[in-house]
């Protein structure tokens, strides 16, 4: 019998949830700004959440590997880990 790959630690789910929350605010603000491009306050909030996303993403990728490829995410530890499990539907 082949071994099943090790499961993700609890911290992975916590980080993921945090990232999903911040990304969701950015998603909602994106759609809002698409129909309200002149709302400067919403734009300022968007910029602020972009910073939060960037910080969180940097921590997440350092701990659990790249979230994007095609050259967007940094390579950590000189290894190609993008194609490793788990994929989003597997976790």
């Amino acid at each position, binding site marked *: 019998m082949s071994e099943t790959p090790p499961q993700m630690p609890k911290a992975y789910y916590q980080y993921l*949830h945090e990232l999903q929350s911040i990304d*969701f605010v950015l998603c*909602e*603000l994106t759609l*809002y700004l698409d129909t309200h491009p002149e*709302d400067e306050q919403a734009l300022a909030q968007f910029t602020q959440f972009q910073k939060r996303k960037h910080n969180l993403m940097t921590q997440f990728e350092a701990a659990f590997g790249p979230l994007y490829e095609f050259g967007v995410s940094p390579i950590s530890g000189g290894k190609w880990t993008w194609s490793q499990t788990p994929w989003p539907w597997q976790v």
Partner: protein
Amino acid sequence: MSTVEKTPSQWRVYRSYHSPFDPCSPRTRYFNVPPNVLQPFQTSARKQFAPHEALRKGTLWPEYYSPYPPETRGGEAE
């Protein structure tokens, strides 16, 4: 018993004509009128849920939150 609701309900009630030859007992039916129908242009982005709650609710905007299954459907209970 009917109750007067403070906020406009997102639910409407209807009953269809019931024939003496209809085999099933009559049923009160409900349909949803979501907030995007009642207010089709968002006028302010000020009122917001906090990020975690927004994710859980599926929207950042309390004015456009449409719970389902609803806590109350309004109208008269059977």
